[in-house]
């Protein structure tokens, strides 16, 4: 495989800082394509991409679909409900069927950690992880990095705090690795019942109080608090969560500097983030969405094609 980032994009943990920078740099020119009247280039013409979504996700699926279509790929969406998956087909059989249909790439969202790797190990096609269980969501991590870089420039030495349910968040893990590889100091803040208790050994600073995190950080990446966490007893109530850990404008006003605010969405306004913060001047939430398409185009571009044998044959043709 000739792609500079490998056959698949499954996680940010195994990537180097240079590989991550390459993806972000590649995303830059793709931003402009989405501003054109005809938002489409022929780069992936003839490529077939399956968007395999075992978990429902409007935002990520649409973002990937735009990215694919703007690169002229042929796309098929498979949702778990109503498909053979719901009829009890195993993931390995799904993988074999995809392979038999000679597709080029698979974008997979799955509720089980490791599912993207499971698929990637079993098929030749390029696999992009669009979120696997509570493991990683690498393109979200990348778009967060791109958004931060747009506003802060070089990220080395900056401080970013990931706030909320780190334990169950694939976004948190991808951010954590991506930020660290770009030299960012990473903090996490949330109730200890929602942080992995080995979190400190991953090289992050833990804040028990959101006020301390706000004083420390240049940017906050505020995770969505999933309502089922409350039902599962990790926290007593959403009301108390907002009072103790909610990012509010009153808390932000006490910060020594203006903090950039990120949120992977969908937001629970009034729980982990207050509306005036989400809609405020330092909120980058919509920039994240815009950058999501560019980052995904960059990843598709970098992974697709690049057939080693053809490349060898094409060598030495000189300038064009």
């Amino acid at each position, binding site marked *: 495989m000739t792609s*500079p980032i490998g056959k698949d994009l499954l996680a940010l943990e195994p990537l180097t800082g240079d590989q991550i920078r390459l993806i972000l740099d590649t995303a830059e*020119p793709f931003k402009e394509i989405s501003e*054109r009247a*005809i938002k489409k280039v022929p780069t992936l013409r003839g490529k077939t991409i399956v968007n395999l979504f075992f978990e429902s996700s409007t935002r990520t699926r649409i973002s990937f679909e735009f990215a694919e279509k703007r690169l002229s790929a042929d796309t098929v969406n498979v949702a778990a409900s109503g498909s053979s998956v719901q009829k009890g087909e195993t993931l390995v059989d799904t993988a074999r069927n995809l392979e038999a249909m000679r597709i080029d790439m698979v974008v997979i969202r799955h509720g089980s950690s490791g599912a993207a790797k499971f698929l990637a190990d079993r098929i030749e096609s390029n696999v992009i992880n669009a979120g696997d269980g509570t493991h990683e969501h690498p393109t979200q991590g990348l778009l967060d990095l791109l958004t931060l870089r747009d506003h802060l420039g070089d990220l080395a030495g900056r401080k970013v705090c990931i706030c909320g349910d780190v334990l169950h968040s694939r976004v948190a893990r991808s951010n954590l690795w991506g930020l660290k590889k770009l030299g960012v100091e990473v903090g996490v803040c949330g109730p200890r019942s929602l942080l992995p208790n080995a979190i400190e050994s991953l090289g992050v600073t833990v804040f028990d109080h959101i006020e301390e995190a706000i004083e420390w950080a240049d940017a906050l990446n505020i995770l969505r608090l999933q309502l089922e966490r409350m039902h599962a007893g990790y926290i007593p109530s959403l009301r108390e969560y907002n009072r103790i850990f909610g990012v509010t404008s009153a808390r932000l006003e006490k910060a020594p500097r203006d903090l950039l605010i990120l949120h992977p969405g969908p937001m629970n306004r009034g729980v982990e983030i207050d509306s005036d913060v989400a809609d405020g001047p330092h909120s980058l939430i919509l920039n994240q969405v815009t950058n999501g398409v560019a980052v995904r185009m960059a990843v598709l571009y970098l992974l697709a*094609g690049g057939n080693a044998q*053809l490349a*060898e044959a094409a060598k030495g043709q*000189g*300038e*064009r």
Partner: protein
Amino acid sequence: MATTSSTLLDARAMLRTLRRMADEIVELNGGTEGLVLIGIQRRGVPLAERLCTIIGERENVTIPTGALDITLYRDDLQTVGPRPVVGPTRLPWELEGRHVVIVDDVLYTGRTVRAALDELADFGRPARIALAVLVDRGGRELPIHPDVVGRSVDVLRGDHVDVYVEELDGRDAVVLKRRAEEQ
């Protein structure tokens, strides 16, 4: 891998050539009305900017210029190894009804120009598109012909014609490189 180099154009010759090309572009267009120069990434971009400056000084007008990266329109993307770096594309105005001149450093197979024509078509419908190149080295693989040529050279297939521009390379020159054993 011994190679011999010979300079086709030095800095002064290159300036003279660009001035002549500027004149020909204005003549071809019948003036500067509606004229737009679009350089192809990477060395076509500074060349287009210089042509604009020259035309602007002579005609006392401001000619709009742009940059086009054709990587995503290349017909060999499936075969090239590591993915080529994509440069920025800047076309900050409407192309409808304009007289567009594509500017590139070297014209060879014509495939780059083919990609540029495809890409421009996605941006709009110019009244006319012309092609200006600093060097035409022959060897076309597509029915594409330049309208304005700085210098035509007859070279062998294995030869390299390298264009250096002050903005990117620190000097202006056009150099022919030929493998010694092929002579």
